[in-house]
């Protein structure tokens, strides 16, 4: 671990480059630093070789942005990485999931299994998962989403524990009910999307009709009926439901690897994006969560979305190995020109 670049049999340039790379490590032990300075000061050829290596690194680190992009695309492309390492295994995993789940549900739903044995399904971060239910209904899970299905004799019940799911419900005498936090959604033969971010729940109808009511309500109290192109959004802060007209395509945009938000609190946006992000995004200051965001996030280019946030919000982005933090930024510092 603590080897010293040796000059024995190596050209000075190599030793200089080895030292350069070692000095780039902020955790370099002090003793090694002193060894390096002994080496540097021992011979002017060492200092010259070191300066030449440093100059090359410096010039490479200060390319014009378009040149830099060219190098990155050629030698360290990001897109290929996503395609080869992530998408394929995920597609495979989804295929396996359908088979396994189908078998699992078949057992659970045999006539007589009326107790409604709960089955829990979850998708991975950034993963999508299709669940084909034996009654012909289907659920498409977004990233980091979990649902529990209980098919009883009188009712088909799905609990959305967290995340986002698109339901396509086959007509049947048994009602299809989705419980999501404070809301209960009763299907009337339709396709709809439910997104649950902690206690915030949004129901968007793409086809047909659903009934949405408070989970705590008895009977039809507080029930609203939504048709296609309508959305009901429950805000835990106000304990109120807001009804909006929407574009049905945008509500289920996540199925096409896009997340779309309209006047959504940043805290909720971040939590949803985190269901897809390799590195979680954290709000350094809880007050930032109250800012509202309207726009589209491509789930495969979350990094560029994050880096653009300082253009629209008074934040700066601090990137760490295991997380990305959004930190409140004063307008003065924000206006400092980029280096």
């Amino acid at each position, binding site marked *: 671990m603590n080897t010293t670049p040796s000059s024995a049999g190596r050209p000075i340039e190599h030793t200089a*480059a080895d030292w350069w790379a070692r000095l*780039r*490590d902020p955790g370099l032990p002090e003793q090694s*630093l002193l060894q390096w300075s002994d080496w540097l000061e021992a011979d002017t050829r060492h200092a010259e070789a070191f300066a030449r*290596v440093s100059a*090359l690194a410096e010039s490479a680190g200060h390319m014009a942005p378009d040149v830099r992009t060219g190098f990155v695309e050629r030698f360290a492309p990001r897109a290929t990485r996503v395609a080869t390492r992530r998408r394929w295994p995920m597609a495979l995993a989804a295929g396996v999931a359908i088979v396994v789940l189908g078998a699992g549900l078949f057992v659970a739903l045999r006539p007589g299994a009326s107790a409604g044995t709960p089955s829990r399904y979850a998708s991975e971060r950034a993963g999508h998962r299709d669940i084909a239910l034996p009654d012909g209904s289907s659920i498409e899970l977004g990233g980091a989403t979990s649902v529990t299905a209980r098919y009883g004799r009188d009712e088909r019940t799905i609990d959305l524990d967290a995340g986002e799911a698109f339901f396509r419900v086959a007509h049947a005498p048994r009602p299809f009910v989705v419980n999501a936090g404070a809301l209960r959604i009763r299907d009337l033969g339709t396709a709809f999307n439910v997104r649950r971010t902690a206690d915030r729940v949004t129901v968007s109808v793409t086809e047909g009709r659903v009934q949405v009511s408070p989970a705590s309500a008895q009977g039809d109290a507080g029930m609203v009926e939504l048709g296609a192109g309508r959305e009901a959004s429950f805000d835990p802060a106000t304990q109120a439901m807001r009804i909006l007209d929407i574009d049905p395509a945008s509500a289920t945009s996540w199925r096409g690897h896009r997340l779309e938000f309209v006047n959504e609190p940043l805290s909720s946006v971040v939590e949803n994006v985190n269901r897809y992000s390799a590195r979680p995004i954290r709000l350094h200051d809880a007050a930032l969560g109250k800012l509202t965001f309207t726009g589209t996030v491509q789930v495969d280019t979350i990094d560029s979305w994050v880096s653009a946030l300082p253009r629209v919000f008074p934040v700066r982005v601090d990137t760490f190995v295991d997380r990305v933090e959004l930190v409140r930024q004063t307008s003065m510092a924000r206006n400092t*020109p*980029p280096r």
Partner: protein
Amino acid sequence: MNAVRQTMDPSEATASPGGHRAAQVVSLFREHNAALVAFLRVRLNSLADAQEVAQEVYLKLLTLKDTTTIDSPRAFLFRAAANLAVDRIRMRTVRANAPVDPDADDWHAAPVPERHTAALEQWRDLRQALDELPARTSRAFVMHVIEGRDFASVALDMNLSERMVRYHVANALAHCRERRDAAEKPL
């Protein structure tokens, strides 16, 4: 080319009645200024910034109380430099994360023609040199040196240890330097 050069003249500082401490700092700088700037240049990847921060180190040491004991002056010098370099990088991060308006920085869109050509040629040579290396080696170099990502993040991305990333970066740097030297040598 001797880029690591004396950037300040500490002898002028002796004129002020700084006493023993000042004299010590001045001699420390005389002896190790080149190494100090070279060290800062690596950490900051900028000679101009390194020279500025070296001045800050110098001022910081001059204003130390005479009662501060320093066991190893050289270690103390590098430690102070490393800390100030971290501050400088932090300051840059703030600036780099400031809103970017791609339409505003048109400074590279209208370059001086001959300078542009020379730059393109230089980068073509670098690209060729990188092409000659194993994919992992050139990749580590591009991520760390060109993109400016730290070893930890490159290691995570490439599924390698930080030590291996360092190894690849050093190899690529030595190779590209050799290629550039060969190109610059008169026939």
